[in-house]
Structure formats: C-alpha cells, structure tokens
C-alpha cells in the first residue's frame, strides 16, 4: 500500500488534470470543445472516477472516525457532482437545479476540511493545508455557483479550473508530518523524512 502522502499526491495529479481540462475548455470555447463526442464527458467522468477512488482511501487510509466521515463525504460529493454534470451533458437531467450539485460539492468539501482538522493552522503542515483547503473550497464555491447561474460563462469556468489547480498544488505540498513555515508543534511528533 502507498504511504498516505503518496495518495494525496495522486489525488493532486487528478485535480491538476481536472484544472487543465477545464482551462482547455475555456480556451478552446464550448463549440470546439464539443466537436468530439467524448470530450464533454471528460471532466465530469474524471471527477466521478476520483469520487469512486476516494472510497478505498476512506476504507484503508483513515485512522479516526472524523477522518473517515470527511473522506466519505468527499467521495460522495465528488460522485454526486460528477454524475450530475454527466447527466446534464448527456441531456438526461433537465432541471437546471442539478447545476447546484457542483457548488454543493465545493461547500461540503470545504466544511469537511475545516471540521475534521482539530488542530490550529501552524500545528504542522497538514493542519495548515487542511485549513487552507477548507477556506479555498468555501470561497471557491462562488465560481461553480456563478456557473450554475450562467452555464457558459468563461470566467466562472476559468475560476473553477484555477481552484482545482490550487487544490492540486496544496495537495502536492502535503507530507505525513512536516513543519509549515518553520512551525512544528512538539505535540505533532518527529518528521518522518
């Protein structure tokens, strides 16, 4: 089994790819993006897949109830957002309220980050990153909310892409136990590597 920090890095790669897909869609424009049948399904199905892959993370890599609940909620909302976007792209879902699934996923993810981090910002690096990710998702929810209001608005799509790339950078910075800006609580333990 990979160490926990490697799992974070693999998900970081997933978020980086998600960000790149969305940026490419913004740059190319919706019409060109939809010229090949598979492309509109690309990022929603990728998001859904990441949600599915979060389940084994929840099962095998969490060591407390609150961690398990947080990872479980990320799995559920990523699958929900991915599935809703797939349904909208395919035309199976007609009610525009389904567009609120993605901002809902952002909000739930942000709250899960903030609630499951029990330590203050500078306790250790992962604490800092959890706080940062939580607030990023909560504030970043503005973009999918704007997209729900105006689906083809390039600024909103670019905003979501930038949030994903930032989430990716943050997850890439994660280590199992490491200082943050020179701060490491003695209660956190010894850095591994």
């Amino acid at each position, binding site marked *: 089994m990979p160490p926990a920090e490697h799992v974070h890095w693999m998900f970081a*790669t997933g978020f980086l790819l998600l960000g*790149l897909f969305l940026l490419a869609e913004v740059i*190319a424009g919706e019409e*060109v*993006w939809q010229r090949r049948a598979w492309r509109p399904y690309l990022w929603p199905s990728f998001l859904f897949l990441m949600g599915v892959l979060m389940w084994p993370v929840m099962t095998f890599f969490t060591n407390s109830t609150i961690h398990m609940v947080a990872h479980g909620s990320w799995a559920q909302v990523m699958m929900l957002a991915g599935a809703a976007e797939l349904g909208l792209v395919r035309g199976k879902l007609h009610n525009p309220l389904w567009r609120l699934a993605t901002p809902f996923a952002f909000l739930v993810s942000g709250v899960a980050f903030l609630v499951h981090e029990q330590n203050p910002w500078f306790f250790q690096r992962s604490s800092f990153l959890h706080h940062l990710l939580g607030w990023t998702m909560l504030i970043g929810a503005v973009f999918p909310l704007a997209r729900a209001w105006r689906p083809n608005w390039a600024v909103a799509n670019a905003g979501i892409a930038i949030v994903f790339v930032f989430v990716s950078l943050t997850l890439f910075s994660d280590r199992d136990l490491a200082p943050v800006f020179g701060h490491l609580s003695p209660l956190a333990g010894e850095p591994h590597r």
Partner: protein
Amino acid sequence: MSTHTATEAASRIRSEHYVWRVRLLATLGPLTAFAGVVWAVVQPYRVTLLHPHGQGFWWLFVQPPLLVVLAGALFHVFVARPLIADLEE
C-alpha cells in the same frame, strides 16, 4: 464597401483569436511539464530515481515532480493535440 471592410476586420480579429487559442493550448501541457522539471531541479531530493538505492516503488515513481511532468505530457498528447486539430479545422 464599408460592410466589406467591417467583414474583413471581423474575420481578421476572429483568426487572431484562433491563433492565440491554439498557442495557449499548445503551451499548456509543456508548461505544466516544465513546472515539474523546475520543481525537480529546485528539490532534487524529491526525485528518488536519482539515488534509488533502498527505495520502494512508491518513493521511486510516485513523486510530485514526476507526477506533474506526467500530467502535462498526458494532457498535451491526449487532450490538447486533438483540440488544436479541431480548432485548426
């Protein structure tokens, strides 16, 4: 006459937009991969392939700089290139 000029100007602006879009799409993947290379240079200890003795699979191959390079390359080959081809049609 003025309609013709306006049409020409609009067409020129549109083609300039397409050129910039193609350029941006063509650089997105390589730029990402380059960021991974820069990261590897700045933090060479992250790339354990450079000193592989005693390292397992995860520490050798699943390292952030390598993953960033891989993401950039995959994106360029499988997403950006077909998209550029569609833009240029």
